[in-house]
């Protein structure tokens, strides 16, 4: 183990970067400090732990690293508990509060520790792909479908927002007052979907002249999704939204 220099790397742009042990948050750091001091979580308020914890934060600061807020909250808690203990007249301190703070912290640490131990136990089991293997099996034909994510209303509204934004950039604002019945837009969407197995959400609005058309088309699309005539899905989370006709159960039963 090298004891100096190793964590320092000089990046291409000349800035110095440090690699530090990754502590996953204040609880992880506290458990590490306790373990090294051969103390258990009940001793978390021992002054040596508080000092080391604060020294660690200071080091992060010196290295110009952002110290996440949760580390600072924990530091404040530790200092508060410590300050109660250091009062010259302990009888004046709100010992109730100090004890409660400490109890909460110890409980959090113990609980965190037990999940960590559970994680270790799980990791020691015979892991598929590491300790045990299976035959690959035949890929089920519907596997491709299973990888799709059904687009939620939020995804749709977000995509809608993007369409409107693009439109605002393109089209000079004029005053066009028109009533576009949503019902008129429905057959148009269905026709667009007839020609292709699927279309991308944004292309639905390609030839929409103004905002009212876009909005009416969007409302019509929501209606079709609600009626389960159209399905909206994504192949990757936050990816483009595709539309397809939902499984044409009625059409298959009564071929026209």
């Amino acid at each position: 183990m090298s004891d100096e220099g190793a964590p320092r790397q000089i990046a291409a742009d000349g800035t110095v970067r440090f690699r530090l042990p990754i502590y996953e948050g204040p609880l992880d750091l506290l458990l590490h400090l306790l373990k090294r001091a051969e103390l258990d979580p009940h001793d978390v308020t021992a002054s040596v732990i508080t000092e080391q914890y604060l020294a660690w934060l200071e080091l992060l600061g010196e290295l110009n690293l952002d110290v996440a807020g949760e580390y600072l909250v924990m530091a404040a808690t530790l200092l508060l508990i410590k300050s109660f203990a250091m009062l010259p007249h302990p009888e004046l301190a709100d010992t109730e509060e100090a004890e409660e703070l400490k109890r909460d912290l110890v409980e959090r640490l113990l609980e965190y520790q037990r999940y960590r131990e559970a994680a270790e136990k799980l990791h020691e089991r015979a892991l598929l792909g590491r300790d045990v293997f299976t035959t690959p099996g035949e890929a089920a034909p519907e596997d491709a479908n299973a990888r799709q994510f059904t687009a939620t209303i939020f995804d749709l509204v977000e995509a809608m927002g993007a369409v409107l934004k693009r439109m605002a950039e393109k089209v000079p604002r004029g005053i066009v007052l028109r009533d576009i019945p949503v019902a008129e837009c429905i057959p148009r969407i269905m026709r667009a979907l007839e020609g292709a197995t699927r279309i991308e959400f944004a292309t639905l609005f390609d030839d929409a002249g103004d905002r009212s058309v876009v909005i009416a088309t969007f409302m019509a699309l929501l209606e079709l999704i609600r009626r389960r005539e159209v399905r909206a899905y994504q192949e990757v989370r936050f990816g483009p939204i595709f539309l397809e006709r939902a499984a044409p159960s009625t059409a298959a039963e009564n071929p026209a």
Partner: protein
Amino acid sequence: MDEERLRSVLESLLFAAGEPVSIARLSAALDDAPRAAIQKALTAMATAYATENRGIVIEEVAGGYQMRTQKDNAAYVRKLLAARPPRLSRPLMETAAIIAYRQPITRPEIEQLRGVDSGGVLETLLEKRLVRIAGRKDAPGRPIIYETTAEFLELFGLKDLDALPDLSEFREIERTIEEANTGPVRGVETHPEDADAAVDPALADEVGESDAADVPPDDDKSSR
């Protein structure tokens, strides 16, 4: 179908499927053979495989039966397949364990337990399909709730969630807390003078350790 024939067919089915197959699915493939007979045959097969020290074991995993290689042979299989074991960082394992034991659980609840932002780890768990969105909690803000998947059970070779490693020592810990609560407060110390001495060597040690830290390469961090 006599019992010998049934075992033969079951062996083929489990081999071909690869994934865990429930008794219901086996029964359907076997033209509705009685489930009790299938169950009995599978149990007998599993025992036979085990007693004959075969390279294959039949195990109950994720609500079904699955053929798996004998784990003592792992090194040879890995070499043959040039297999890369799944990368499971400690934060990932921790978060998966919390979800497994506490599901259904929301992201704020996970973060409260871990004391740290868990969005990235959750995203990785979703991508690896070890965890899925189970819906929304009936609470203010309707937060998303997460649960583990069949793939999670399969990865760790668990029959179901009840087969998770027992955490009985939890009760012991809780008892300790009880005692700590009623007993005198330990550890609130007032020795500021010995603190300075402790700090510096600690830090030197901290930095030196960094590249050899016992944390596995952290995939979900570095990839973001």
